[in-house]
């Protein structure tokens, strides 16, 4: 057995989504992802985005992980949020785990592209983007 066998495997990100909210069914653990979006329109900036959810599905995860999400404004390279959580994925490398995070809101100081970067035990494993732009005439939702 090699050295690598003692380390948690590196998870593969099968899905990484931003949405209005994630509802988890108590009995079955099934998740309902409500209102997937990747763009935000606002009348002006800075603004505040209300409650939203982050959902990720990870495969090849076996062991204990420190998961971290960094939220960056790409044009200015400013970090606007950071969060972390611990996850225990069990011993089966073929199992998948769901990461569910319902947040109260987030400040969007500028228009532009925001990136949510996901890392596990300090290893970069994926990202998703959110584009924030000024609301155009005629767009209601």
């Amino acid at each position: 057995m090699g050295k690598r066998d003692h380390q948690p495997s590196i998870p593969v990100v099968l899905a990484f989504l931003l949405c209005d909210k994630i509802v988890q069914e108590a009995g079955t653990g099934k998740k309902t992802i409500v209102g997937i979006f990747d763009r935000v329109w606002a009348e002006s900036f800075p603004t505040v985005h209300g409650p939203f959810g982050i959902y990720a599905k990870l495969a090849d995860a076996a062991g204990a992980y420190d998961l971290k999400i960094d939220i960056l404004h790409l044009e200015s390279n400013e970090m606007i949020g950071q969060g972390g959580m611990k996850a225990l994925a069990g011993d089966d490398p073929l199992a998948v785990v769901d990461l569910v995070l319902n947040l109260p809101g987030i400040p969007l100081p500028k228009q532009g592209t925001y990136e949510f970067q996901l890392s596990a035990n300090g290893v970069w494993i994926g990202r998703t983007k959110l584009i924030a732009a000024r609301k155009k005439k005629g767009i209601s939702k």
Partner: protein
Amino acid sequence: MIGAIRLPDPVVSPPGAHTVERKDAEAKVKAIVGNEPVAAQFKEISYSLPGRVLLGQTFSPRIRIVKAIPADISQEGRVIVACWAATNEFGSGSTLSEALEDLSRSIVELFLALIDEAALGPDLQKIRSRLSDHIELRG
């Protein structure tokens, strides 16, 4: 025997967009976090481009990373470069993530090109060996 079903055609549509009604959003946030503005929930976090990132994703269904790849990060003007010095592979892009994704594509291409170890000369065998410490074929 049970026959296969024909799936309906998938519906492909643009991703969703959300409109922030500013006063409404602030009211919702205040209701959830109390009277503190949501910005108070976030600490001031200083950020600078990291000098090294451990890469753990290849974006190839054929390849699995078994040990994170150390990517040295540098910036040349507006271009960000991610380099894995041990194999001399690099990727570039306008953001860190683009550079990492470009690097991972280069690594996958190299790994697949060097898959027939017996046909390689000594130098390429060394590179192949370094690659095999970090990535492997699935299945």
